[in-house]
């Protein structure tokens, strides 16, 4: 299952884990990503709060957690290759979290609803 937030993050759910990244629409709006400021393993994300930032040449954009949870892995490959987010944002997630409240997913948009939202 994949869900999207109004701030253009996605969470791809696999069991008790969620992989959080930014949408294809978001990476296009940003342009070339030059740096991803990521949290550390063990950090607790709070739904609706920023947990890092993604930077294009022009500007920094906050990353807003679509769900709450403990960071169990960060995608360290983005440190040396931040443009992976542009090439394939759905495959190149930013953090993996252990979902602390799966009911939060209900408040997010389905892929179809998100496609409508960005029109």
């Amino acid at each position: 299952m994949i869900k999207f937030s109004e701030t253009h993050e996605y969470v791809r759910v696999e069991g008790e884990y969620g992989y959080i990244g930014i949408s294809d629409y978001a990476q296009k709006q940003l342009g070339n990503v030059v740096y991803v400021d990521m949290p550390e393993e063990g950090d607790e994300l709070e739904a609706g709060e920023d947990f890092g930032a993604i930077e294009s040449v022009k500007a920094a954009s906050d990353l807003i957690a679509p769900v709450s949870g403990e960071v169990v892995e960060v995608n360290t490959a983005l440190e040396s290759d931040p443009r992976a987010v542009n090439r394939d944002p759905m495959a190149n997630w930013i953090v993996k979290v252990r979902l602390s409240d799966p009911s939060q997913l209900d408040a997010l948009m389905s892929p179809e609803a998100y496609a409508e939202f960005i029109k």
Partner: protein
Amino acid sequence: MDEILKTCLHDRHVALGALMSPFAGFDMPIQYSSIEEEHNAVRNACGVFDVSHMGEIIVTGEDATEFVNHIFTNDVSAAHDGQCLYGMMLNERGGVVDDLLVYRFNANRYLLVINASNIEKDERWVQEQMNAPRSDGGFFRVDLELVSEVTSELAIQGPEAERVVEEVLGIPCADLTFYTFKEAVYGGQPILISRTGYTGEDGFEVYGRDEEIVAMWDALMASGRCAPCGLGCRDTLRFEVGLPLYGDELTDDITPVEAGLTMFVKLDKPAFVGREPVAAQKAAGPERKVVGLELQDRAIPRHGYEVLDADDNVVGHVTTGYHGLSVDKSIAMALVDARCAALGTPLKVRIRRKTFPCVVVKKKFYKKSYKQ
């Protein structure tokens, strides 16, 4: 500003699929392809910018030279006809009202090219100065023409710019030396062309009516020899070569001494607005200076971020910062306490929740390549 303004090329930008964004009241192109591609086009070949948002004021009259010298830091009385001068207008405290280019046609006629973000402020300021009595009790015998709305401008920049202007636009320009200009003809109409720019590369700026500027833009696009370039790379290009942007490195509260621009302030010419505080500050040494910073980390210092010393005291703020495109490092310009301004001083920048070590370096991160 109530309504968003559009330049005469707005339709072209939209048709090219540019990312548009408000800047200084105008809906302007930020990028067409990507900031990097456009940046590299200017460094390596040729790019064209729509800079029609810039403001223009013409000063004429028998006291034009004295008046411009009264409001401008550089010395136009020492310039020759056909020369451009960079400098600033200062307020009474020595802060910068605006930085600008002055074109000297002759002793009785000058063109001031001002920042779009300051058009209203500058027009008001110049009019106030014109209407204020001179030190001898008389008044400057000058007239102002506020021509921003009827003047459009292209900047054609890069090592190929001279050939592109000559061969695509058919405007002879090889004879122009750096910081000179001439009147020319395009499409049967008068235009103005100068060998100036804001990129650190060789290049030209062309002024004209909307009709001629649109025709030139179309010819440049049709030629395929000139990339359309947005304000995004205009900022990365000027930043890398250490050129200031009004609003970042220059404001009403930052002096030319603090900004490191005293070479454009001629203290030995007759009195001008802001001279005394700037002369005093130059003699005493400024309390703050604009410096370059280089980070070891890839995190990017942005405008407004705090700069700290080794003991975590806030000693200044970032004025402009990027991940450098020509130098693969995170770099910034920052306004810091003078005691922290020496080259090699270790400092820190606060970027969101963390602080990152950095070191004071020269603010020319990339070497200019002007044609003299």
